[in-house]
């Protein structure tokens, strides 16, 4: 056996290991809170209460989670093909153009359910287009996607400043944003969904794009595990030489994967633009593209993992805001530190506790395993 980490049961692999990582992250975060002279238990209370304490809070948590599901899926799709798309930020930003154009065009004449599909298509197209170039550059010119996507984030940022100050800004307005959309450009809230559980959504912008995010998650599962394209993507991600042997075109898969990834990132723009603000503002992505990387890492690039991971980050965002509100000595930056710790332990140091956990399980299961020799002759 060349693999010293033997297989772990599913619930350990996907349940216990992430939980242990998460627990350690919060432990260290607690120490940081102690360091600034605050009570970590109180902070934990505000975190949990701020995220789940009221229907309104839950609405906010899920609103953020919606955003992170999209960007997490975007990163995950690229991961499966062995591509590291860190341009989700820029792709989401540019995807906003598609949403804004659809809304500005039809919001006054059409109901939301007509504008919404067009906005979905628009956001996906613009996001895909923004990811197409890095994909194409890697496929045809060998420019590494990590470098190009990150550079494209900056280009996107400048482009959007230009558009929002010169092109899409209504005349006479002082703020760099589009006009506020009429009824047709605003998504209905999911108040009914929360009221099923007896919760009141209050002012939280939890909207139908959450449902779209769930559909997208299912779509990604279908794509990756049930389509020929997904099969080819995974082959390339695991072993480019096997992909070549099987006659799969590396450049074709690279470009297509990046476009799908970009489309998913672009669709993120629906949530803040149509779901919350009712207009496109400067810098509406607010780092969600990067959080998507952590979400995908934590969710093991599987939709079933990405959704809870996205909710977790929604908790950190919403609950974290509550901490800094209730405990003034814990600033907004502290929250970023806590989020960073979660990313560190759940993502980067993912394997830190694995050997110990593996040892624990291999000793306990050895007695039962004498019969279960998996190696046939």
């Amino acid at each position, binding site marked *: 056996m060349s693999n010293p980490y033997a297989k772990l049961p599913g619930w350990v692999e996907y349940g216990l290991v992430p939980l242990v990582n998460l627990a350690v992250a919060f432990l260290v975060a607690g120490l940081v809170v102690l360091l600034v002279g605050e009570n970590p238990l109180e902070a934990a209370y505000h975190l949990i209460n701020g995220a789940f304490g009221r229907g309104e809070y839950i609405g906010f948590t899920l609103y953020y989670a919606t955003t992170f599901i999209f960007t997490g899926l975007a990163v995950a799709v690229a991961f499966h093909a062995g591509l590291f798309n860190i341009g989700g930020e820029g792709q989401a930003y540019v995807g906003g153009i598609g949403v804004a154009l659809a809304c500005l065009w039809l919001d006054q004449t059409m109901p939301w359910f007509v504008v919404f599909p067009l906005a979905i298509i628009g956001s996906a197209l613009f996001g895909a287009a923004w990811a197409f170039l890095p994909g194409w550059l890697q496929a045809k010119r060998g420019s590494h996607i990590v470098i190009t996507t990150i550079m494209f984030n900056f280009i996107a940022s400048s482009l959007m400043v230009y558009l929002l100050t010169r092109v899409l800004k209504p005349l006479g307005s002082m703020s760099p944003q589009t006009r506020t959309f009429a009824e047709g450009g605003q998504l209905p809230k999911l108040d009914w969904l929360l009221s099923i559980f007896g919760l009141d959504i209050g002012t939280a912008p939890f909207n139908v794009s959450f449902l779209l995010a769930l559909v997208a998650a299912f779509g990604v599962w279908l794509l990756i595990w049930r*389509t020929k394209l997904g099969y080819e993507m995974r082959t390339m991600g695991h072993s480019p030489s096997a992909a*070549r042997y099987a006659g799969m075109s590396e450049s074709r898969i690279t470009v297509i994967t990046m476009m799908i990834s970009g489309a998913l990132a672009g669709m993120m723009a629906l949530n803040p633009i149509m779901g919350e603000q009712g207009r496109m503002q400067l810098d509406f992505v607010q780092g969600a593209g990067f959080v998507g990387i952590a979400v995908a890492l934590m969710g093991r690039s599987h939709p079933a993992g990405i959704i809870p991971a996205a909710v977790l980050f929604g908790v950190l965002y919403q609950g974290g805001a509550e901490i800094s509100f209730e405990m003034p000595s814990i600033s907004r930056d502290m929250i970023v530190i806590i989020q960073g710790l979660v990313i560190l332990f759940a993502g980067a140091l993912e394997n830190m506790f694995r050997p110990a956990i593996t040892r624990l399980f291999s000793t306990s*299961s050895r007695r039962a395993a004498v019969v279960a020799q*998996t190696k046939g*002759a």
Partner: protein
Amino acid sequence: MDSIAIELRGIDKSFGPVHANKNINLKVRKGTIHGVIGENGAGKSTLMSILYGFYQADSGEIHVDGKQVTIRDPNAAIAAGIGMVHQHFMLVENFTVLENIMLGAEESQILNKGIAKAREELKRLEREYALEVNPDAVIEELPVGLQQRVEILKALYRRADILILDEPTGVLTPAEADHLFRVLEQLKSQGKTIILITHKLREIMAITDEVSVMRRGEMVATRKTAETSVEELAELMVGRRVLLRVEKGEAKPGDVKLSVNGLTVKDGRGVTMVDNVSFNLRAGEIVGIAGVAGNGQSELLEAISGIRRAVSGEVHLNGKPINVTGHVDPKDLRDRGLAHVPEDRHHVGLVLKFEECENAILGYHHDKRYLNGVFLNVDAIRKDAEQRIAEYDIRPPNARLKTANFSGGNQQKIVLAREMERSPDVLIIGQPTRGVDVGAIEFIHKRIIEMRDQGKAVLLVSVELDEIRALSDRILVMFAGRIVGERDPDATEGELGLLMAGVEGRKEAAE
């Protein structure tokens, strides 16, 4: 007079549910060559990794020179006088020989002092054991035989008294292997103890003093080599009688299925790897390409199967040209009846992280049978995979198991099943039994002969000369990218060995 160099007592090791070593006892006498044989997955490598400190035994004791030692890591093993020559060399390719030998034993932060000392020590070792090698040569430019010599020197430099060699002859020509054996004899006469891990019975018979046989994680027997036979050892390894010779009838060659004309292939650095190679492959025959690894066989296979672009030359499949110098779609070749079992099943032939059934369609995933529009027809894929698992006796019979969890022999069967299943006109096979256990080798050889008897054209590349001789109807020998001779399968090993070493070939070319 017989003192014990190494004694293992009750070594036990599990990886999760896999019980790799079960209560192993082993005594190795000082100044002997002790063979350890067993099929792949029998636990030989695990046992040696425990001895060398890569893994920790779950229980058991290791005694070196009568004293119990704890070997927590390779450094502890080296301190106890144990050196290891790995199957896959642990050398830094772009370092020189000297740098590699010093690596990890530099002795001081300033390299210069150490280098001078190492150079002197290396000279002494060369003299003492007749292991000449240029200390300033860069590893990647050395032939494999010499790289292995560097590995041995590395162990000796660290004052190893006990040398473990893991499958040392897998990559060597017969001549190089003979030379290695002479070196080992020399080391033995100087009082070193050698543990030789191999699955090649002939080597065991030729060189060892004693031999221990492992099967399924257990040490099943230890014999004095002089008192045992190849047949007995094979039976001990597999647990049943095995057919060591392949039985096959006369070949009935038919039409030319694959013709290669003046094929030249260069590698990424522009070095000519295949040099103006021409041959024909007919229906109903097996043509074997013998040669030491790295003499262009791999590149030849890749060019024919459309993975690597050729510089010049023509290849015809069923009379129609393959655009080998331009873009070739391997899918197109599959459709035209060419199947390819690649040499490297771990990185090319299989995706180890895939489920078995996913690998069973690799390259054939365009097949309408496996698709519903853009979707995979998972039921059909699994059903086909299960059927083939039964036909090819792939174990464990689980189409949903990760491919990495199959043994080497079963992984190879997965590839063979996939490529043979579609009854291709031409079957190209690279290293059909590399890292495959004896029982599976028998099975794979039978299948290859069956393919031939069904009138398929088979091109076989293997570094195992025995295999080439056993299966082929004609043998082509490759050396330095060229075909240096064609022989009948009854050519002697010596004759082929000389060709493989480029000796005869040069003479022939000069005549």
